[in-house]
């Protein structure tokens, strides 16, 4: 039978607020256990939540970025369940009145097609703490530093059809929230986590099949792999005439398989009700408009501009626009150089290579966009040749200086284009290497092009920064004179 895959993602993104959603404690990652949990985060008797308006502003910003309806009245509810790292015995979330309603994003597929994926909603909620199972001799430790960190849970419509699409969707969301600065996007620290709902149905059937939920997948690659593994598992069962159990599963990246976490056959009854400690959050259109004013140019718009206004290819534009820091770096350098294509080549070439080699982000690289821009400028006005430019670039990356023009001087990279000066150097090179000249002259006419190579190398060695174009011409002339 032919099966259709139905995928929906629930992405949890931690909002980049300084303090927690309902308390004044810091949200910084990596502190000693339980040092960033105040009485509110610990759920002590008598404490009350106070809503952090910064979290509201960020959620609204996100909603506007995905062209969603903004909930002018949103309401916090209590979701009741017992779990050791949920200190109050309930999670404060938004059930019926989320801050962000129906919106959408566009994802690009490999074939260059664009697909619009609808986003059902995004609501504000608090993160839980963490249970630590190692190092407590058979017991569990609880770290509540993360408890109360603001999250938006972004729920997609079940419109994704392949694991690749799901990964592209996750990537695009990552790109959007980091562009907006509402989430730091650090997947390794759990700043963004993805739950994947996967089900299969016979092609043409309208009714959904039974779904499973793969919890907490935390990389783009694993989203794709986990979903594919789950599709395969479900298909095997269905092809054999079996039934899928509605359950929560975990992805084991080492074995590339999903396994059941806990059965949801008996649906958990969370006994939601409006939180009586928090007033409904009421905002007006003026507030929304003011937040709209602060929206940066988003990846899609930036990509289109790179393509249409600056002549970049669709692929280059997409790669450069996907990450805001990289895009900013690129564009700053491009503007200084006055050449977007040249800058695009450099950023995707040497800059990307350096980032990969050093395993750092663009802002941690030892070279600024301004410095790269200056290097490109010097290429453009022929002060530097390509090799010289790379040398300056590498010197900067290795922290050997920070003044581009100074480095050009101290490394003697200034390109010599003056024909008279080059003639002198070439004459010297030819005089110093009579055997090579002999060999050259003995070379048949049609192979002389190649045989000129050693002279070019020697000339450039003798005088760094000679313009190779000019060297070629002078050499050709001089050798012809000889033979």
């Amino acid at each position, binding site marked *: 039978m032919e099966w259709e895959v139905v995928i929906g993602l629930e992405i949890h993104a931690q909002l980049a607020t300084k303090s927690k959603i309902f308390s004044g404690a810091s949200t910084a990652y990596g502190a000693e256990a339980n040092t960033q949990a105040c009485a509110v985060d610990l759920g*002590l*008797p008598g404490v*009350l939540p106070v809503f952090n308006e910064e979290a509201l502003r960020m959620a609204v910003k996100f909603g506007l970025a995905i062209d969603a309806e903004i909930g002018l009245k949103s309401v916090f509810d209590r979701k*009741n369940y017992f779990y050791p790292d949920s200190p109050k015995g309930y999670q404060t979330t938004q059930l019926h009145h989320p801050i962000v309603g129906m919106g959408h994003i566009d994802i690009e597929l490999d074939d260059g097609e664009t697909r619009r994926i609808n986003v059902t909603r995004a609501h504000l909620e608090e993160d839980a703490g963490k249970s630590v199972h190692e190092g407590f001799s058979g017991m569990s430790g609880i770290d509540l530093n993360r408890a109360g960190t603001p999250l938006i849970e972004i729920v997609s419509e079940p419109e994704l059809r392949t694991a690749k699409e799901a990964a592209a969707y996750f990537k695009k969301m990552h790109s959007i929230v980091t562009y907006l600065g509402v989430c730091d996007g650090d997947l390794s620290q759990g700043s963004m986590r993805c739950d994947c709902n996967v089900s299969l149905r016979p092609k043409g059937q309208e009714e959904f099949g039974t779904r499973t939920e793969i919890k907490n997948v935390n990389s783009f690659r694993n989203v794709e792999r986990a979903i594919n593994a789950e599709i395969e598992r479900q298909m095997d069962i269905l092809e054999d005439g079996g039934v899928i159990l509605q359950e929560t599963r975990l992805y084991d990246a080492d074995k590339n398989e999903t396994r059941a976490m806990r059965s949801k056959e008996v649906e958990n009854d969370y006994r*939601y*009700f409006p939180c*009586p400690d*928090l*007033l409904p959050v009421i905002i007006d259109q003026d507030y929304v408009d003011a937040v709209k004013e602060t929206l940066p140019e988003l990846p899609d718009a930036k990509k289109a501009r790179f393509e249409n206004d600056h002549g970049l290819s669709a692929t280059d534009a997409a790669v450069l626009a996907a990450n805001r820091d990289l895009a900013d770096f690129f564009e700053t350098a491009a503007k200084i150089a006055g050449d977007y294509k040249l800058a695009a080549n450099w950023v995707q070439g040497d800059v990307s290579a350096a980032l990969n080699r050093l395993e750092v982000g663009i802002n941690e690289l030892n070279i600024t966009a301004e410095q790269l821009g200056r290097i490109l400028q010097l290429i453009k006005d022929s002060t530097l040749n390509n090799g010289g430019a790379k040398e300056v670039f590498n010197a900067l990356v290795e922290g050997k200086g920070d003044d581009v023009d100074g480095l050009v001087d101290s490394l003697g990279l200034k390109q010599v284009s003056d024909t008279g000066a080059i003639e002198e150097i070439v004459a010297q090179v030819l005089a110093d290497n009579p055997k090579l000249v002999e060999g050259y002259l003995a070379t048949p006419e049609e192979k002389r092009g190649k045989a000129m190579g050693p002279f070019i190398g020697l000339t450039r060695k003798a005088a760094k920064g000679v313009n190779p174009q000019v060297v070629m011409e002078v050499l050709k002339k001089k050798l012809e004179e000889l033979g």
Partner: protein
Amino acid sequence: MHNKTIAEISRDLAAGEYSSTEITTDLLARVKDLDKGLNSFITVTEEQALAQAKAADERRAAGNATPWTGVPMAHKDIFCTKGVLTTCGSKMLSNFEAPYDATVVENFNNAGAVSLGKTNMDEFAMGSSNETSYFGPVKNPWDTDRVPGGSSGGSAAAVAARLVPGATATDTGGSIRQPAALCGITGLKPTYGRVSRWGMIAFASSLDQAGTMTRTVEDSAMMMNVMASFDKKDSTCVERDVPDYTSTLNDSIEGMTIGLPTEYFRDDISAEMQQQVRNAIAEYEKMGAKVKEISLPNTHLSVPTYYVVAPAECSANLSRMDGVRFGYRCEDPKDIEDLYCRSRGEGFGNEVKRRIMVGAYALSAGFYDAYYKKAQQVRRLIKNDFVEAFKDVDVIMSPTSPTPAFKFGEKTDDPVAMYLEDIFTIATNLAGLPGMSVPCGQVNNLPVGLQLIGNYFDEARILNAGHKFQQATDWHLKAPQGIE
């Protein structure tokens, strides 16, 4: 000295008649002597009290005393107090020391008040007789075979027995007014949002409100001057100026319109009880007030509504008492499930468990609309009754409770009978209105309370009306036998 009111002590301290240390020492001795029989305190903080008294005396000497500096009082054990046990009357919190002070406690500390300790209460404020306290029932000073009312029975009994001139309390469905009535003292529950709930252990968050237990209305006004404040830490606290509640106590009440809801003068309330309340109304008429019969047609729905809303909220509020981070934990838990089940099973008393179960049921899938949602709709109707009524009247008056103090055990096997104790007080909480009980007579030597219900944030007016009544009568001066 123990018969002195807060106002009198404040004046005496200012005049140098005696020091805070002297009256604090005197009252601590009295607590030691009398409270064995009453059990109104869970924790007596003798050392801290004497230190606070000493600090108060020094502050006075330094010339920056407030009207409260050096005045002794006590806190209901529902308010968190830094470094002192806060048990909420439960085994669950029998070892709980809060690392912070409730805003109410902080306000009194800042004013220089001296706290003698923490008063007994029904477990997690769930009860109308103080019989659900893990620390044993409080006895009514008027008759120690009888209950003091609840849940703030400890505060009411301590004030009635002249152990302290005033105490904080909380009221979710009548927990200030009913024990005040049964112990013959004055109890005020302010408008919801008037006093911060920060640090007040939640029973039902949308109904809970802190208030006062005193012998006189004047003292209640003095307490309100300290307690009422805007607090950013409580999102439901209302930002609104706090008037000087003592400044309007003596205003004339001539022309004031009193509404008497027919639904509150029911046939099943004894004729003697009703007579005491009628006598009080007659007193008001003598002072120039007008009386108007009114109707609050949804009154009969208030008890059932309350017993959906309050348990629902408490079922979530009490989830944090799980034995994991603080409070009671069972011995040798096998796993986390066992730790939860036994810690909660052993830590909570029966009434608390009953309400958690009722609440969880009311919120469960498939029942939510029929119970919780419906209750919220009815709650609006009840509120609207009052909004309508206050278009025509200034104050609503009624009996505070259907009966005077009853005997221990009389209603413990019949939860519904116990719940009906709050039949006249509960609607006020559902509507969020301020209410007060003042002593207005006696039946069989037991005090009877008159309830005054005011419009939103109109505490000053009911305090004014209550004070005028106490100027004209002496019910509030009567003390239980053997207490004088």
